[in-house]
């Protein structure tokens, strides 16, 4: 029998956040220090032009992007799990990832030479299109129905998947190559403006979701209980759907549908730090960022000079861990 967890104290929360913040800093430092080339920051100090190019334009932007996208996906997953009161919810259940992936693949197939450069913008547009469609279809009499939201998201993901398969079957070998690696999920080295946009979107969406942390806590009592505590459920649903979708859209547009971060990290942190969303959401931002930075570090260095798509690493780490977690929960659940 598990011992009941003590209520969240400011000191405990600060301890967790300081620890995870330090982990993220260490991960970023390791990510920036290590790479396939063996170039180090002291080479930059020595005025090496190649070191400047590799460290400042290739390695560091990618590490920072990993931190932002990992954090954003984990926050989106934690918020959606809170809203649906379902631990299997993740940022990709809403159909947004399907729309984004379809947009990215359409850009590769239809836009010719400019296709690769248009992928992020097209994926973002696809995500916004999916968001509007899902919201319209899941709204009935002015209310956003959570079951309809899940079902619509699942159907949209399946429909997008079918269209993507169709596009793959008519794509050229070079387009097929780009599509396959985009769909696996891989981190690019973004230009400064992409990094800035990602940072702003992540900060605004995370702040908006953290503001509603007490509402997610209240929702643990059920919709009726939360309403009795004064939670405006309709606003909460729409805000969560909108901001989580934005975080997902930004991530999929930049790096393709990287799996498991939004599912695994919230679970892991809920298990370790407790279910209080006032801690869980900022912890997810820091923990998710650290996880993706470390996964990408492994993807860049394990088989260097080869790279592995980071989506493969997150799935390889995440899949078995998730199954272990489920098994452990099943063992700890009270009989009957």
């Amino acid at each position, binding site marked *: 029998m598990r011992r009941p967890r003590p209520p969240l104290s400011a000191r405990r929360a600060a301890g967790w956040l300081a620890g995870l913040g330090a982990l993220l800093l260490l991960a970023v430092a390791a990510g920036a220090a290590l*790479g*396939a*080339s*063996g*170039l180090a920051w002291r080479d930059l100090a020595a005025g090496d*032009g*190649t070191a400047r*190019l*590799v460290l400042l334009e*290739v*390695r560091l932007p990618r590490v920072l992007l990993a931190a932002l996208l990992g954090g954003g996906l984990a926050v989106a997953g934690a918020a959606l799990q809170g809203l649906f009161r379902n631990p299997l919810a993740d940022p990709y259940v809403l159909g947004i990832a399907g729309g984004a992936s379809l947009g990215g693949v359409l850009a590769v197939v239809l836009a*010719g*030479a400019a296709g*690769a450069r248009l992928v992020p913008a097209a994926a973002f547009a696809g995500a916004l299109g999916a968001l509007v469609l899902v919201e319209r279809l899941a709204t009935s009499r002015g209310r956003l129905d959570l079951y309809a939201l899940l079902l619509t998201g699942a159907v949209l993901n399946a429909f997008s998947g079918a269209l993507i398969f169709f596009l793959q079957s008519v794509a*050229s*070998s*070079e387009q097929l*190559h*780009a599509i396959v*690696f985009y769909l696996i999920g*891989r981190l690019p*080295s973004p230009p400064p403006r992409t990094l800035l946009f990602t940072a702003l979107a992540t900060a605004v969406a995370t702040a908006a979701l953290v503001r509603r942390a007490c509402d997610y806590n209240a929702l643990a009592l059920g919709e009726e209980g939360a309403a009795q505590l004064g939670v405006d459920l309709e606003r909460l649903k729409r805000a969560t759907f909108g901001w989580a979708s934005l975080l997902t859209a930004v991530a999929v547009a930049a790096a393709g549908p990287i799996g498991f971060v939004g599912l695994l990290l919230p679970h892991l942190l809920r298990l370790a730090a407790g279910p209080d969303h006032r801690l869980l959401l900022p912890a997810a931002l820091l923990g998710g960022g650290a996880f993706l930075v470390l996964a990408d570090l492994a993807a*860049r260095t394990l*088989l*260097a*000079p*080869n*790279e*592995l*798509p980071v989506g493969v690493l997150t799935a390889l780490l995440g899949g078995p861990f998730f199954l272990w977690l489920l098994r452990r929960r099943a063992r700890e659940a009270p009989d009957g």
Partner: protein
Amino acid sequence: MPHGGRRARSGFALAGALLLAACRAAPAPPAAPSPRVVVMAPAAAETFAALGLSGLVVGVGDFVTYPPELAARPRVGGYDAPNPERLLALGATHFVTSASEAAAASRARLAALGVEVIALDGASWEGALAGMAALGARFGREEAAAALVGGIETRIARLRERTGTLPRRRVLCAVGRDPLYAAGPGSHFDALLTAAGGENLFADGHGTYLLASLEAVLARGPEVIVDSADNRPGAPYGALSGLWGQWPLLPAVAAGRVWQVSPDRYAVPGPRLAEMAEAFARFVHPERFGPPTAADFGPPGGE
């Protein structure tokens, strides 16, 4: 009766003559039907043409684009998903495809349908030469195949001699751009650029083709880049820095040794291997072998 006896005798004689004629003209065992071959692998298609066997080919895979007389044959799909219905409708007796894992399911399916499956290793240099010899042996052109393989080996050996004393230049063979995919050890590109006096930038990579680290490319500084990633119709080929121009620090960009080439010309390890190696020598050491010609860049047959 005498008339009747004569008639009877002549009747027997006629019957005997017919029987004798029938015995003399006893049908020889039916000649084996001519093979009807479907070729999926572009290198095998070129080999059929080089051995004078184009007439046997009744269908081709989607990736066969050369020679024109074979590229115009009915299409039956990709390596991993040939259309068995179309294949059987063409009356295919032989199916020549790749030995790759991607084609394994289609090989098994067609073998079960009674089609003779010939799987060739097209990923490596040795595999490509062995494939040419195997096709010659299977379809009665052993001597022509031996001459073809021998000719390639002789030209390559001569090239190796000429490049043996030249400085080895670091060469990146990019076969995909986004993400960056490069030729690794064991690929036919690796053999081509080595024969041409180069050193593969990813000779230490894992796999014949690999998802390459951009960071490693920038740090290792290739002196020559052969970029065969762009197969769009009308793609620009030639001495163009293309996307590599954004990194002027790269020695290949600084020296003007970035070559955009058609994948159709270099991705097919078939009868043109010696020509490819000689073109690579012009890419790697233009000061020794002369600058590449227009024919070195575009798709085959476009000269």
